[in-house]
């Protein structure tokens, strides 16, 4: 691929965003390592309140993350993503530090659950991807989102073993504090996510677009909302495609648009599958007679191939129809899951499943974020993608809960695996009717929305 060079300013933005995503996603993926060291009694420095109390804190964390994402998105659209990432980083750090001190379940739910969950919604890769969608030049958005997704995936692959190594070497408290130190860098890194100032010299071709976009914003209907706040207007760089004139108007447009609902439905399935596989694949492999080592390698392969899949998906989604890309990704997930069920189980089958699912894992993210941008413009991208992500988290909750419930009822995961195949086919099909065009300029809310 040859394309105009990015300015050093935009490269800095890209690298800082990638590091933020890597750290946040990696730390978030490491919480499973702390279950026993923190919750099991008779361990050094353990709080000893049991797995159930720890699981409750993680459930609250995921819920807070999901619900907090649209709120964080709205704040990012209003005040600029860098402020939200910085604020989220502070809360995330605070949650990590305080969770080493809160030894009773109630306070642990507040620190490890609520604070970290809200912090992740601000300082997570979702906010970063939306920022890329708003701040990168249009011809580089898809690629930047692919790279952002790939680095977040790499975070999952790298930070989990590093977290375990920290626990082995220094104990869980120092491991959490080391993660807190890493996350504490995000407010600093967030400074790079500020949109280039109107008159800031940039050496790339995007500088012209920025100036013209700012000029358009200043002259357009958004000008009244700016009130001289340069950061806010900068956050609207290249946001001129939105037809909504306010957040309320944008939400009215989105939730009154059938294509947006189809996108929500598809991403619900994504959350269902990812959470189900993450939580229930190891015990399933154990049930069918494979070793714990095969299970851990399968999960590791998901992480490794996820890096490749995320990057490729970003690249492809800049070149082809996003709805068709999503159709093929979900169709492939259905085929891979069905093959996993039908083929004779062996270590090779489990490892091949891990690699194939890894390629399809977060590859749904770049085309989904971009579809939101294509349909509604970038002005309220963070908020509107935040709601899509909330749907993902609800799917994740259902996937984990239903997997455990059906296993408890039937003693097998087979029903859930086949349900996952059917849902993947459903998700593939719902993307076909999505209208991959900008939402038609609609009248203001008072005149009909």
């Amino acid at each position, binding site marked *: *691929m*040859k*394309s*105009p*060079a*990015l300015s050093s300013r935009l*490269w800095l933005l890209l*690298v800082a965003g*990638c*590091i933020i995503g*890597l750290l946040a996603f990696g730390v978030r993926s490491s919480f499973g390592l702390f279950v026993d060291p923190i919750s099991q009694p008779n361990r050094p420095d353990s709080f000893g309140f049991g797995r159930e109390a720890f699981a409750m804190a993680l459930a609250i964390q995921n819920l807070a993350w999901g619900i907090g994402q649209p709120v964080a998105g709205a704040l990012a659209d209003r005040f600029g993503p860098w402020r939200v990432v910085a604020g989220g980083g502070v809360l995330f750090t605070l949650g990590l530090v305080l969770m080493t001190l809160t030894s009773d379940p109630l306070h642990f739910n507040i620190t490890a659950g609520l604070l970290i969950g809200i912090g992740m919604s601000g300082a997570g890769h979702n906010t970063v991807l939306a920022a890329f969608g708003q701040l990168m030049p249009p011809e*580089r958005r898809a*690629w930047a989102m692919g*790279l952002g997704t*790939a*680095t977040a995936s*790499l975070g999952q692959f*790298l*930070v989990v*073993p*590093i977290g375990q*190594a*920290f626990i*082995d*070497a*220094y104990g869980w408290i120092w491991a959490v504090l080391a993660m807190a130190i890493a996350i504490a860098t995000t407010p600093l890194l967030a400074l790079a996510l500020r949109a280039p100032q109107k008159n800031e010299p940039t050496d790339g*071709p995007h500088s012209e677009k920025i100036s013209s976009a700012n000029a358009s914003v200043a002259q357009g209907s958004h000008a009244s909302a700016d009130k001289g706040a340069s950061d806010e207007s900068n956050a609207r760089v290249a946001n001129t495609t939105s037809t909504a004139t306010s957040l309320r108007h944008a939400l009215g447009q989105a939730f009154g648009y059938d294509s947006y609902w189809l996108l929500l439905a598809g991403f619900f399935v994504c959350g269902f599958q990812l959470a189900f596989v993450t939580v229930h694949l190891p015990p399933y492999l154990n049930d069918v007679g494979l070793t714990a080592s095969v299970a851990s390698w399968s999960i590791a392969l998901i992480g490794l191939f996820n*890096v490749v899949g995320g*990057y490729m998906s970003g*690249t492809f989604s800049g070149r082809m129809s996003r709805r068709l890309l999503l159709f093929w990704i979900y169709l492939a997930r259905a085929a891979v899951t069905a093959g996993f069920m039908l083929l004779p189980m062996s270590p090779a089958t489990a490892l091949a499943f891990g690699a194939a699912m890894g390629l399809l894992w977060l590859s749904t993210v770049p085309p989904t974020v971009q579809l939101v941008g294509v349909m509604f413009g970038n002005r309220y991208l963070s908020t509107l993608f935040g709601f899509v992500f909330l749907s993902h988290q609800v799917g994740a909750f259902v996937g984990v809960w239903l997997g455990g419930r059906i296993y408890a009822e039937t003693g097998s995961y087979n029903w859930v695996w086949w349900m996952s195949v059917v849902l993947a086919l459903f998700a593939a099909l719902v993307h076909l009717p999505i209208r991959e065009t900008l939402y038609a300029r609609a009248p203001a809310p008072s005149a009909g929305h």
Partner: protein
Amino acid sequence: MRVHQPHLRAISLLLLFSAVGFGLWLWLQSQREEPLPTLIWAPNLEDAVVLERAPLILDRLGGGWWWVEATPFEREKLRGLGAHLALAVPQPVARMAGCTAELPRDPQEIERLGPP
């Protein structure tokens, strides 16, 4: 108009992150108190010195390269003796790197066999 290959930079960035992460992981493993396979490079030390002073010998690669099993304290001692490198390597990675010996070998037996 300047053009460049963004894939090359993107892959370089991913490899850089991976290298930093892998390096951090190796360093953390080396901080563990329990003995770990350790790659020694001590071309300036006589074999007899290594055999006498090193903890459990796992393998001898020749050219001053050895696999031993050592704690952080023992690695420090080896560095003090003049070893240029004493790098703790987690068990699975050590095996992938060629340290296949499951059990420590007798130093006298190694001396009798000589270099591979």
